[in-house]
């Protein structure tokens, strides 16, 4: 990489970080010092900010880079998988789970899902368990972002800045940013980043179409060069894989702390409704161009070296260097905005659901929001330590985090709706499905008679789906067997008896 281009990229990344810092400080000035203000922006987010902060959080750099990489290699069917996942299933869960949680939050002042369940089902143990499982799955995700950022900076400077300096610098920036900004600042920068991402991807598509000689020529090229992309299915795209991936990820993300907590922050019902209606539109606006970009790159015959990003390579082939730099800076910022949200939510789970439930005076004179800031620091530094080890299996662990969270979703949904739900049954369901899931992730398949145990799929379906069903069955059957359920209610008749 030329020296000038490197300086341009560094300047663009630095400029972008400075802008987000200014936004964070502005948010700090209108945030008061309480926990609800810090974690939930006073439950005051409007439609635009809520949609973009949820969308930007949903789309880590993994989606932004990983999606085009997949469609480059395997065809654009990924558009359909992500479409049903985020445009339809997630929107429906937004209503079924999100609206319900939002109402409980309005009435009872909950900040986390663990707090809600623990209070409604009368079990501190359940509250701690939900928080602990969530933090376990969150940890590798934060680590992945730090590793990604460290490696991106190595790439950006051609090795001029070593990996650990990059990862450490990003970690320090994230801690400082989250400590200052809280949810309001995170949401505001997410909005900026979401708009930048949308703009950049459409300009990138325009550049590629132009380079290919127009829309018509692009279609003909695709028919000649990659005819297999035109037929739905084939290769990795089996019906079982497409359905399994869409279902586990859609259900999994609803229990991601940084997504789940956003169910509490809407200003009013109108905001929730408008966000719900916008999901399918957002999906078309963002995923179709981003993922077609990868597929068109393959049709244009661009060669992508092993381990490099399709978006960066294809753009480098057809666009000026400064534009590539803007895209990379945007992706880095997206990575950090996801990490900010993860750190903030992880800290709230840690301080409220774990620390505060163990000692009544846990926060002392510091106050909860400040203990939360310390929590952010500890969590981020621990994850940084992990990211220095760069364990090879981390990608696997990160990928399977979706499935791990998905194991929580159905027991939680049942508890949100069914008055008879027993805390003990949910605890048993969560523990057993997590153990079973971990077994499938980490153990090799074993043959027991005619059966294979710990297989990745059974009859072609992902093991995570079986775990989800098992969790639901265990919750319902366990609750029916548990005689001592006398559920404290919020005085409503909305629970199913």
């Amino acid at each position, binding site marked *: 990489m030329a020296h000038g281009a490197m300086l341009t990229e560094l300047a663009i990344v630095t400029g972008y970080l400075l802008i987000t810092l200014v936004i964070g400080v502005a948010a700090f000035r209108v945030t008061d010092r309480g926990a609800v203000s810090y974690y939930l922006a006073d439950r005051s987010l409007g439609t635009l900010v809520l949609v973009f902060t949820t969308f930007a959080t949903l789309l880590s750099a993994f989606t932004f880079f990983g999606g085009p990489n997949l469609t480059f290699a395997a065809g654009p069917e990924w558009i359909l998988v992500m479409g049903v996942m985020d445009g339809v299933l997630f*929107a*429906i869960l937004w209503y079924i789970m999100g609206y319900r949680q939002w109402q409980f939050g309005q009435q009872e002042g909950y900040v986390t899902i663990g707090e809600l369940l623990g209070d409604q089902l009368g079990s501190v143990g359940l509250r701690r368990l939900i928080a602990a499982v969530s933090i376990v799955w969150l940890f590798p995700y934060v680590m992945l972002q730090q590793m990604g950022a460290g490696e991106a900076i190595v790439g950006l400077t051609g090795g001029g800045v070593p990996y650990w300096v990059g990862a450490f610098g990003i970690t320090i920036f994230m801690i400082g940013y989250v400590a200052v900004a809280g949810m309001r600042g995170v949401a505001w920068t997410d909005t900026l980043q979401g708009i930048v991402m949308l703009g950049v991807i459409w300009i990138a598509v325009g550049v590629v*179409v132009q380079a290919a000689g127009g829309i018509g020529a692009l279609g003909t090229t*695709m028919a000649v060069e990659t005819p297999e992309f035109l037929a*739905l299915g084939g290769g990795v795209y089996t019906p079982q894989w497409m359905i399994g991936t869409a279902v586990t990820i859609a259900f999994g993300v609803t229990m991601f702390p940084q997504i789940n907590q956003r169910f509490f922050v809407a200003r009013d019902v109108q905001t929730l409704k408008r966000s719900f209606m916008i999901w399918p539109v957002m999906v078309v606006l963002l995923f179709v161009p981003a993922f*077609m970009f990868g597929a068109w790159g393959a049709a244009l015959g661009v060669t992508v070296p092993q381990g490099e990003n399709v978006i960066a390579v294809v753009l480098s082939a057809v666009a000026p260097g400064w534009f590539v730099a803007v895209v990379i800076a945007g992706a880095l910022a997206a990575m950090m905005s996801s990490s900010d949200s993860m750190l903030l939510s992880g800290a709230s789970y840690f301080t409220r659901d774990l620390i505060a439930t163990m000692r009544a005076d846990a926060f002392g004179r510091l106050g909860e929001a400040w203990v939360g800031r310390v929590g952010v620091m500890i969590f981020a530094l621990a994850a940084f330590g992990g990211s220095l080890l760069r364990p090879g299996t981390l990608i696997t662990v990160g990928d399977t985090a979706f499935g791990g969270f998905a194991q929580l979703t159905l027991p939680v949904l049942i508890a949100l709706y069914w008055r008879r739900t027993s805390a003990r049954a949910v605890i048993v369901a969560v523990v057993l499905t997590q153990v079973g899931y971990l077994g499938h992730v980490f153990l090799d398949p074993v043959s027991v008679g005619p059966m294979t145990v710990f297989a990745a799929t059974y009859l072609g379906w992902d093991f995570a789906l079986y775990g989800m069903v098992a969790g639901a069955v265990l919750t319902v059957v366990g609750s029916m067997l548990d005689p001592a359920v006398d559920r404290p209610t919020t005085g*409503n*008749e909305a629970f199913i008896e």
Partner: protein
Amino acid sequence: MQWEALQRVRWVLIGVVLVGASIPWWLWQDPLRWGPLPVYVWYHIGWMVVVTVVFIHFARRWWEPLGTVDGTRGDAD
């Protein structure tokens, strides 16, 4: 109460159709193209428009009646 339960069942069925038909299974392995995109991508764009229209109708008319915890705010619109 009876009527509400009926509406819930109706909306669950509509939800199943919206999810199930998000992927055009009947085009499986059919190499069709229109302009720069495979036909199934055009279908996806069209289907998301349909989903949006159904969602708008649901949010305007059925959101509170079917999902409000309190019961007192259900008649808001």
